[in-house]
């Protein structure tokens, strides 16, 4: 056994940051998959694991399509269809509740597995399934998340081991070589004994400066097939909220407090306090910390924050790139009674001290 590593050399220390940044780029990449390299890496992973090589490689567009495809393989539907043993039904009957993505995934899989032979359409297979099997399909697809390898999204743990593999190097970590090649080349993947499902990376990914998933204008993550995730500064939210389709009534009906707060920010506090008819506390005051702008304090019903708070509506001291200044709401305890006290509370100073400020940095 190799000698235990007890310290890093200066060169190894210096390699930490670039290696970490390289893996961050891999994890967040939206480039098209390198299909040749991904397939080679997957095959290497099979070899290292002592498994026989799979016959078929199937490419799909997203984790969602991948999981649907994995269900079609795990349930044996696809193999039975390829061998002509699957039960089929009347294509015009019983397929009304079939998800629109199933037929597309089916065609991609069968194009590989059927090897040019005729095969039934997914509608025929779906119609031939028992009602119980059809009803259980979504649960079975959801379960495929557990058996997925995350490809590029395995960067969190692969990066750490890859450092010890490449930079140090440490005996044993070479076993990760195949998995690392896949991670550097594509998105989620599913290994089966006779086939591999590999998927594309996202086509778009948006983070805010704090590295939280965020996009005010559309999906924070989007894949080529339309599978998408909407997020507001790290809080996952419904698409309708990001699209601006929520009014004050809908916001107040939202049971999740984080989503509710995100929706208020999305709408804008200025608009929300008017539409929700929040009760103003005290007078509108000039902001001593931000000359030329005012601060206003409002009561916020407990229904919004799950606890009684007040909100100070103020203007950002920093000019945005477009030349505007963002108005925002700062929640405060109900113990503050004036806008000045609320602003001072936000800085952890007294109202008297805040009143002496000339302008925020």
């Amino acid at each position, binding site marked *: *056994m*190799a000698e*235990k*590593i*007890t*310290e*890093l050399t200066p060169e190894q220390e210096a390699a*930490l*940051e670039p290696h*970490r940044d390289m*893996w*961050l780029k891999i*994890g*967040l990449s939206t480039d098209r998959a390198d299909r040749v390299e991904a397939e080679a890496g*997957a095959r290497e*992973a099979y070899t*290292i*694991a002592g*498994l026989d090589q799979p016959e078929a490689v199937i490419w799909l567009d997203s*984790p*969602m399509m991948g999981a649907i495809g*994995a269900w079609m*393989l*795990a349930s044996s539907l*696809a193999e039975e269809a390829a061998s002509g043993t699957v039960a089929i039904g009347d294509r015009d009957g019983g397929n009304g509740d079939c998800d629109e993505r199933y037929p597309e995934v089916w065609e991609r899989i069968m194009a590989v597995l059927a090897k040019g032979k005729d095969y039934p359409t997914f509608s025929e297979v779906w119609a031939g399934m028992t009602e119980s099997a059809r009803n259980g399909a*979504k*649960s079975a*697809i959801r379960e495929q*998340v557990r058996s997925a*390898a*995350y490809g*590029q*999204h395995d960067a*969190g*743990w692969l*990066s*750490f*081991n890859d*450092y*010890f593999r490449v930079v140090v190097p440490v005996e*044993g*970590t070479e*076993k990760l070589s*195949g*998995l690392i090649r896949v991670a550097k080349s594509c998105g989620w993947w*599913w*290994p*089966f*004994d006779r086939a591999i499902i590999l998927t594309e990376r996202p086509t778009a*990914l948006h*983070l805010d400066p704090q*590295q939280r*998933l965020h996009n005010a204008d559309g999906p*924070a*993550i989007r894949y080529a097939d339309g*599978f998408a*995730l909407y*997020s507001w500064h*790290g809080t*996952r939210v419904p698409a309708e909220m990001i699209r601006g389709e929520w009014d004050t009534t809908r916001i107040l009906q939202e049971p999740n407090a984080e989503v509710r707060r995100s929706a208020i920010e999305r709408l804008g506090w200025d608009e929300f306090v008017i539409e929700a008819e929040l009760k103003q506390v005290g007078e509108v005051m000039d902001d001593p910390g931000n000359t030329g702008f005012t601060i206003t304090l409002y009561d916020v019903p407990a229904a919004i924050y799950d606890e009684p708070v007040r909100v100070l509506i103020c203007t950002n001291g920093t000019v945005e790139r477009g030349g505007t200044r963002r108005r925002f709401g700062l929640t405060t305890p109900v113990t503050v009674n004036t806008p000045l006290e609320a602003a001072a509370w936000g800085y952890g100073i007294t109202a008297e001290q805040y009143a002496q400020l000339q302008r925020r940095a």
Partner: protein
Amino acid sequence: MRSVCVQRYDLRTERVGDEPLKEWAIANDVYTRVAIDFTNAPIRSAVDTVVEGTVHSFRTELSNMEGEERG
């Protein structure tokens, strides 16, 4: 078709064979030094956020579809 595990060793939990990686190959302080740079770095905070978000969205979308079908 049968799902297979392409990772018969368990480096995800930093184990090779019966012993954790740090026990047989790397001194604890070196292991920790590197772990801090990778674990506390944006890789985990950003990429794992993407994974969690994707898994969540995935489950939500399937649940919503089930709800629509039941309805």
